[in-house]
């Protein structure tokens, strides 16, 4: 008997979509088996997760609340990943964006109206995230430093920096000793859709970012260059693409969008800067899977952001009702990523068994 693996030539849209959806379905089912580790019936836990996130009006509202930062970050990551730049640093970029906008909220906000404060917060948030994305981009193109390690180290540094601020110089005088900054003035907080924690502005910006990223990748010269460089670096070299410029632009967008997600979190949800883990909620890592599950398609990312928003909400539910630690969802997400990769294999290759 002889087993060989062959590349599929033409793959019909129907086949690849079927395999893709099937692999996600299988991924979710099999990943649920990790709940056995704590003696909980996987189907029950699985049911709890989806009931908690999509099974009620409250759940759906919370799912959308969490899908917004995931979508913003994933859109940025899609740009970077298309150009094969492994930006694992969205968590840090989010935190720096949140920090920059907090400064505006606390120093500019009290004496100005929302009409100038809010746009300013989003602008500096974008700048903060973009600058923080700029660092690993320069380290990579100028000095050849691996971007995965650089972005990860910058995540840890940003976390410690925010911790320093909220325990130290920025600690609020009105927060009874809690490590929060003072609450933002009304001019620096975002209006929410009544009965939810969804802020209009962040939702709109997130949806606009989908269109902008789609347009950028598909219709602009830079987007084209990023795709070429990502798919075939050698061809890109001969075609005279300016790698340095391209990488920097890519990372300014990627970091900037994560920074905007950070503004949405502090101005829309928490209304002060607080523990780094609470501000970022690990969105920067989950969004990596959001981007890949969407197969780096900016439009599909809307669906996968909602899906993972739901999983995060469900994660909170099983945390409180079944006593799972927060990290459970990390393991769950990691397994989903693995199974989606296995699914990709079956769309690209076929296994032939000859006797």
């Amino acid at each position, binding site marked *: 008997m002889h087993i060989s*693996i062959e590349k599929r030539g033409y793959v019909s849209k129907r086949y690849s979509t079927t395999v893709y959806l099937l692999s996600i379905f299988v991924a979710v089912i099999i990943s649920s088996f*990790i709940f056995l*580790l*704590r003696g909980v019936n996987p189907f029950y836990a699985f049911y709890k997760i989806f009931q908690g996130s999509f099974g009620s009006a409250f759940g759906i509202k919370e799912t959308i609340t969490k899908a917004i930062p995931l979508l913003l970050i994933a859109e940025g990551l899609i740009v970077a990943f298309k150009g094969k730049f*492994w930006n*694992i640093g969205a968590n840090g970029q989010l935190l720096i964006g949140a920090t920059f906008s907090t400064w505006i909220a606390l120093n500019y906000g009290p004496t100005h109206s929302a009409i100038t404060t809010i746009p300013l917060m989003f602008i500096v948030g974008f700048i903060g995230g973009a600058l923080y994305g700029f660092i690993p981009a320069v*380290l990579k193109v100028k*000095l*050849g*430093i*691996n971007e*995965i*390690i*650089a972005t*990860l*180290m*910058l995540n*840890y*540094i940003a976390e*410690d*920096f925010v*911790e*320093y601020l909220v*325990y*130290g110089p920025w600690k609020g005088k009105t927060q009874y000793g809690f490590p929060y900054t003072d609450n933002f003035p009304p001019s620096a907080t975002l209006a929410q859709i009544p009965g939810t924690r969804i802020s209009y502005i962040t939702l709109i910006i997130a949806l606009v970012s989908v269109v902008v990223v789609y347009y950028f990748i598909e219709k602009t010269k830079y987007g084209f260059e990023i795709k070429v460089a990502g798919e075939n670096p050698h061809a890109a070299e001969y075609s005279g693409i300016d790698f340095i410029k391209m990488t920097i632009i890519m990372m300014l967008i990627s970091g900037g969008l994560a920074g905007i997600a950070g503004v949405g979190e502090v101005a829309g949800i928490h209304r002060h800067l607080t523990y780094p883990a609470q501000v970022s909620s690990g969105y920067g*890592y989950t969004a*990596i899977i959001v981007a*890949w599950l969407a197969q780096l398609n900016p439009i599909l990312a809307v669906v996968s952001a909602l899906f993972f928003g739901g999983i995060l909400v469900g994660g909170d539910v099983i945390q409180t009702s079944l*006593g*799972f*630690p*927060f*990290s*459970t*969802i*990390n*393991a*769950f*997400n*990691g*397994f989903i*990523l*693995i199974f989606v*990769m*296995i699914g*990709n*294999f079956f769309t690209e*290759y076929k296994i032939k068994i000859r006797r």
Partner: protein
Amino acid sequence: MNLIISILQRTMVAGTPLLLGTVGEIITERSGILNLGIEGMMALGAIVGFSVTYTTKNPVLGLFTGILAGGVLALLHAFVSINIRGIQTLSGLAIAMIGSGLAGMLGKNYIGVPLPTRFSEVAIPGLSKIPFIGPILFNRDPLFYTGIILAVLAWFILFKTRWGINIRSVGENPKAADALGINVGLVKYLSTFIGGCFAGFAGAYLTLAYMPSWIEGMTGGRGWIVIALTIFAQWDPLRAILGAYIFGGVDVLQYILQPLGIPVPILKMTPYIVTLIILLITAREIMRKHLGAPKALGEPFIKGEK
């Protein structure tokens, strides 16, 4: 003087998990597999080592199960990288998430529980009496000595034996290795498994010798620093010894500087900042000497494909 001795003693302890992790990653990467999942394999090794030791009161059994836990998780990475031809960066990230997540789940009931038994210091007769050097190097826990021996052994195997040549040729040029009759897939599988075992060992060291208790996130980015140290070591286990103990020193530095009134979060940044600095220095050296990673690192090998 006593202070210096105590600082250096703690440096040795803090550097050991980094050394173990780095030597493992060097073996894995030498075979052409990039496994970014160290942080997860370490966390899993730490909690498995802890819980087994806690239940059986047998730290040796705990250590071996911790090592095995890291290895088994690495096999998942090997499967995705070798058979599925997946993107290794992505698979490694998934491994990091899975390992940290599972460790959090398994460890929930052990938070704040002290370990009844651990690996304690063993003085080497004679050598431990040498002034200054003795108490620093020869009055350590047995795992410290094991770490150094394993690093030297790994160097010897990689550079002085047939096996080592096979591993390196698979990482440099898998097609040529295949033509010479080397089972490329098997070599990659074994190297990845062994690398995972080392990461599991590093994790178990944390809970069984370094700090005999479990808290979630206790690996604290060590798994990522290991990836950087692998580059700093230029894929050479002997250089890894140097790098790991420099970093051990950086770890201890935080505690020395604390009484000076520097805020703790700022001190916590130091290992990460130093990692970036070390990478900067290494990058310059690589450019000057034209050194670099194994040539086929991270690329899937497809037998018979042109």
